[in-house]
Every structure is written in C-alpha cells, then in structure tokens.
C-alpha cells in the first residue's frame, strides 16, 4: 500500500514536471525562442569557429588552456538550443529549414552526433595530444556542417 502510494505520487510529480516543461515552452513567444536559440548558436560559433577551429587552422596560436575552456563552454552550450526548435517557431523567419519539423528523428540524430563529437573533443583535450585534438575539431566541424546542410539555410 505504502509502495503504491509512493509510486503514484512519483508518477504525479513526474507528470506535473513534464507538463510544466511543456507549458513553460508553450508560454514563451515563438520569436523569443528563436532569439534564444540563435544566441546559443552565436556563442557556439564564438568558441568553436572563432577559437577551436581557428587554432586548428593555425589562424591563432594553439593554447591548451583556451582550448579546454572553449570546449567546456561548448559542452554546455551544445545542450541548449534544441528545445528552442519548437514547432511553434516554424513560421518565424530564421535560417532554420522546415525539414527540422518534418524529420524530427533525423534532427535529433544530428544533435546527438554533435553532442558525441563534443564529448570526444573534451576528452581529447584532456588527453593532451595536439594532433588528436586537431582531428577531433575536424570531426566537430563536420557534425556542425552535417546538420547545417540538411536543416539550415546559412549564408
């Protein structure tokens, strides 16, 4: 009996929690969601294209500390944009393509690929082998491109 009560209250808490998450997104204006996810993309660009990839390409000198910090930021940032791609935003003008909402499983796959490559990048930087870090930066770059190619119209 006690167990049953525990389970039902747990289910209730989870249910309310999930409902709350949905409501909280539904209440945000689509334009705001777009702005927020664009802000995350902008910061990812800053730390990836502006620092990590620039280092890999020799545009700026390689600095292990900066690399580690940028990768840590990316690790957090790369979890943030996705709930901003809510179907409610489909009609807001942005670089996002309708394929995002037509092929949600493929879009999720692309997100997971990016997450995986970033986790590997953090590990590579911890490992300290510069060549491995460079190669992994290339892999992250490909993950970004792979998603952009299918789901974004960037200029």
């Amino acid at each position, binding site marked *: 009996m006690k167990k049953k009560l525990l389970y039902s209250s747990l289910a209730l808490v989870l249910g309310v929690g999930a409902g709350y998450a949905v409501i909280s997104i539904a209440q945000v204006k689509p334009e705001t969601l777009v702005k927020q996810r664009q802000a995350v993309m*902008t910061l990812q*660009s800053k730390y990836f294209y502006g620092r990590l990839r620039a280092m890999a390409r020799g545009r700026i000198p390689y600095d292990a500390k900066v690399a580690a910090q940028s990768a840590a930021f990316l690790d957090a940032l790369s979890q943030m944009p996705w709930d901003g791609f809510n179907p409610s935003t489909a009609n807001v003008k942005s670089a996002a393509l309708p394929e995002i909402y037509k092929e949600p499983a493929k879009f999720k796959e692309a997100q997971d690929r990016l997450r995986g490559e970033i986790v590997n990048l953090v590990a590579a930087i911890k490992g300290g082998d510069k060549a491995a870090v460079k190669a992994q930066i290339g892999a992250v770059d490909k993950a970004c*491109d792979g998603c952009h190619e299918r789901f974004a119209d*960037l*200029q």
Partner: protein
Amino acid sequence: MNHCVRHLLRSAALALLFGFWAAAASARGDAKHGEYLVKAGGCVGCHTASEKDPPFAGGRALKTPFGTFFGPNITPHPQAGIGRWSEADFVRAMRHGRRPDGANYFPAFPYPSYTKISDSDLRDLWAYLRTLPPSSRLNQEHDLWFFVGWRFLVTVWKWFFFTPGPFTSIPSVSELVNRGAYLVHALGHCGECHTPRNFLGGPRRGRFLAGGKTPEGKRVPNLTPSRLKPWSDGELKEFLLSGVTPDGKAAAEIMDEVVRNTTSQLTPEDLSAIIVYLRALPPLPD
C-alpha cells in the same frame, strides 16, 4: 684573326643553344607555379571524392537541376586519368570545352570561366597535373535527365552562353583590379555559384556576382558592394582566410571548402587584388 672568328662563332653557337634551351624551358611550363594555380582554380574540389580519397582522382558528385555530374580523374593515369593527353588536348578542354575526341564537355566543368585563363597559366597548370601520382580510380558516369545527356545539345548551349578566349585586361583600371578580375573570372570561377542562372543553366549576365541559389535552393550571397560594403577590407580578408564572418558566424560548408582549398592558399597580393576587384564591381541589389 682566324682564332678570333672561331671564338666568335663558338659564342654565337652557345648563345643559340642557350636560346633554344630557354625557349624549351618556358614552353614546358612551371609545375610549381601550376600547383599554385591549381589551388587558385579550386580544381581539387570537384576532382576529388573525399578527403580520404586520392586527390584529383575524381568522384565528387555535383548535383544540378539537370542531373548529377561526377568529376573525372585528372591524374596522369593512362587509362583511368588523362595520362594519354597531349598539352594541346588539355588546352582544348580548358579553352574550348572539348574532349580530345572533339565532343563537348557539359558546362558543369566550368570552362566558361576557365577559357579566360592565360596561355602561360594553362601551360603551368598542365605541367603540374603531369607531376601528380597516377591513380587508377575509375570515372563514374554522369547521372543526367535522358535528353540532357546528349552532348550535341551542348553546342547550342555554347552558342548562347560561351565565349572562348583568354581574359583581356581592362585598360581603364589599375593592374591590381585587373589581377583581381582575372582571379575572380578565370581561375576562381566565382560566378559559377555567385551569378544566378536562367532556366537553361546559363549565367544571367546582368547579374554578375549578384548572388543566387544553389541547386538545393540555398541562398548564395551577393558579392557586389551592395552586400559587401559594410565589411572592411580586414574583415573580408579574415573571412577568406578563416571562413568566419565579421559577426562571428561560419561560412556554409560549400564556401568553407573554397576557403580551405583556395582563398586561404592565395598570396596576400592576390587576396588583396580580389578584394579590390570586388569593391570595384557595380553594386547590384539582392
């Protein structure tokens, strides 16, 4: 006296020999300069399947509204590549868009741009291509709509949209602008993507570099001052070297490839020339 004449004759013979040697050397083409020109021409992009595949051995798919083209093997392999070609065959391909057997190339091979490459640069390009390691990678057939594959139709296309002949400098502008124009028009073949096309796939001349759409429907930016004016020379240079825009965004992969293979490999002088030329273009609205 006799001695003197003999000495003179010997010197003259030597001079003549040297002259022959110098002429032969210049006719042979400079492979090292050719390597630079191959980068400026972005050849590796369409003529290489992927980073893991042998460079210049062909295989890259180019999707167009008319079907999918596959860049061929241009290594000197006698069967799979262009090992049996003569220099004249190469020049005919680049300048006139014709195969050694006389048939037309499809303009997916950007000879409407490459025709503008100078004679001496063509010689250097050829000299470099001869130095590539031969690859036996076989060419893939183009996958085209049924009647698009009729090569004689390209003859008609060429009447409308193809003017053979090397780039001629514009006398009223500086040498730097002319150098930039040459790089953009001839080697860089920037207009192949940045100039919109009509329904026959021909470039819309009045809209040179005014931007368009990729076959997948993605936007290709306008390169005339209407769009590039807000970018400083330094910002434009940084973009062409690193693929990052002034607002911190990255170029789309299709352009990033051009940055990696071509623009980041150019000499600072050539990069400046391109920028100066783009600034001198008539501004066209998007």
